[in-house]
Structures are given as structure tokens and as C-alpha cells.
């Protein structure tokens, strides 16, 4: 997933639950269908949270990686 395809990046580094999810929900309000949203988080709980969020909202979790204690999620808006 190239960086250039990403429409919005949400940096939730250092933020605790439920901020990564809440910030993402706020950010996707300005995006449109098909847009790719990238979220960076450091909260280990966000892994399961973003899977749940994608399932609940119908947005697609297309990529999920971890490197150097940073979790990166790429979501495609439905």
C-alpha cells in the first residue's frame, strides 16, 4: 500500500483507549467512500479494537502491521 494512496493519516501515537478509535471516527467524517485511511497507534489494545471497529462500521481493514512498537492500520472506507 503506497503512501501516496493514503488520503488521511491519523496519528494516535501515545493515546490510550478509546482515543485511537474516536480520533479515527472523527477523521473519516471528512473522507469519502473508497478513501484509504492510515492510523498509527501505540496502544496494544488497538489491534483488537480496529478489527472490531471495521466489523461494526463495515469499513475494510486492508492492512495491519506492527514495527518498533507502532501499530499501523490501513482502512478503506465503505
Amino acid at each position, binding site marked *: *500500500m*503506497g*503512501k*501516496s494512496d493514503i488520503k488521511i493519516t491519523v*496519528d494516535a*501515537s*501515545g*493515546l*490510550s*483507549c*478509546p*482515543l485511537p*478509535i*474516536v480520533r*479515527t*471516527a*472523527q477523521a473519516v467524517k471528512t473522507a469519502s467512500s473508497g478513501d484509504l485511511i492510515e492510523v*498509527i497507534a501505540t496502544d496494544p489494545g488497538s*489491534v483488537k479494537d480496529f*478489527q*472490531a*471497529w*471495521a*466489523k*461494526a*462500521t*463495515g*469499513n*475494510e*481493514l*486492508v*492492512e*495491519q*502491521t*506492527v*514495527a*518498533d512498537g*507502532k*501499530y*499501523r492500520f490501513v482502512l478503506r472506507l*465503505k
Partner: protein
Amino acid sequence: MSPAAKAPAKATAAKATAARPVARATAKTAAKAAADTPKKLVIIAYSGELEKTWATMILASTSAAMAQETSVFVTFWGLQTFVKDKKRITGENWMQKMMSFMQRPGVSHRPLSKMNFMGMGPWMMFKLAKRYNVSKPKELLEMAQALGVKFYPCQMTLDMFGLKREDLIEGMEEPVGAAFALQLMSEAEASLFI
């Protein structure tokens, strides 16, 4: 923010290849299966303690973030949480005024049910929250409102505490009764009494 996250596209791409996948991406079919009609959550905000207020605000804001229609019925001690922070004394008669004097209203002035120690407990909780980047109930309340959570004050409790509509924070719905709350709950996937 670490240098890794700030790095230009090429460096990030290199990092991503080295990154370990923690789970397989959700299948497209699963995304499509998600219900188009929003699910509903109702929270009865009954208690006024800090820890319970926190739970209400976390769940309400997250529920709205998950695109659920979220309503909070605010009653009894929960109403004290929704009085404006700068209001000190509320009520019309001496009993109501005395009650607000004994327990300062407002979302930022909630006592703990355990280890309150005349406010030392909440003070320490807020210190810890700041250290661990945890949002305070007031911030979560504002986020919940921005995400469209509806807060309904209970008319009967407003009357009993002598609270006026203008004593409460901005952006709340019109006061309602128990029947309205029960109707909301009967139509919701989940209801919580906090």
C-alpha cells in the same frame, strides 16, 4: 512521534516490508456483511461517581465512533455530572441548595466511590490519567457530543433537585421521562445501567 512514522514514503515502505503482520486483513465479504441499519446503544447514566462517569463517557464516545446510534438517559446522581462545571450552588430551596453545596456538581468535580479522601483520590486519578494519556470524562463527553451522542435529562430528577435547563451543559436534548427511556431501550441492541 517517532522518526519511523515521520519518515518519507520510501523509508516507510521499507519498514512496512519488514513489519510483522499481526493479523490477516478483514475479508471484503465480512465488510459487506456489516449491517446497513445502525445498531443502537442506550446508557442509563444513574451514578455520579468519577469512575462510573468515566465508564459512561468512554462507552458513549466509542459507541458513536462505531457508528452506533447512542443515547444516554441522564437521571438521579448522573444529572449532577451534566450540570455546568462553573455552577457552584443549584436548587431552589435550602435542601436542594444544601445538596449541591455538599457535593459540587459538574463533570470535572466527580468524587470517587472508594478512596475519595476529600478529593485527593480524584486528583491522583487525573494525575495518572495525564501521565498515561487517558482522556478525562469532560474531554470524552465533548467528543461524544461531537460524534452525535444524544443526552436526555430526566424531567422528574431535574424537578426534585431543583435544576433548571440552563444549569445543564449545552447541547442536551429536551427532558424526558421513564417511558421514553424504556422505549429507547426496547429498540436498542444493548442497554447499560451505569
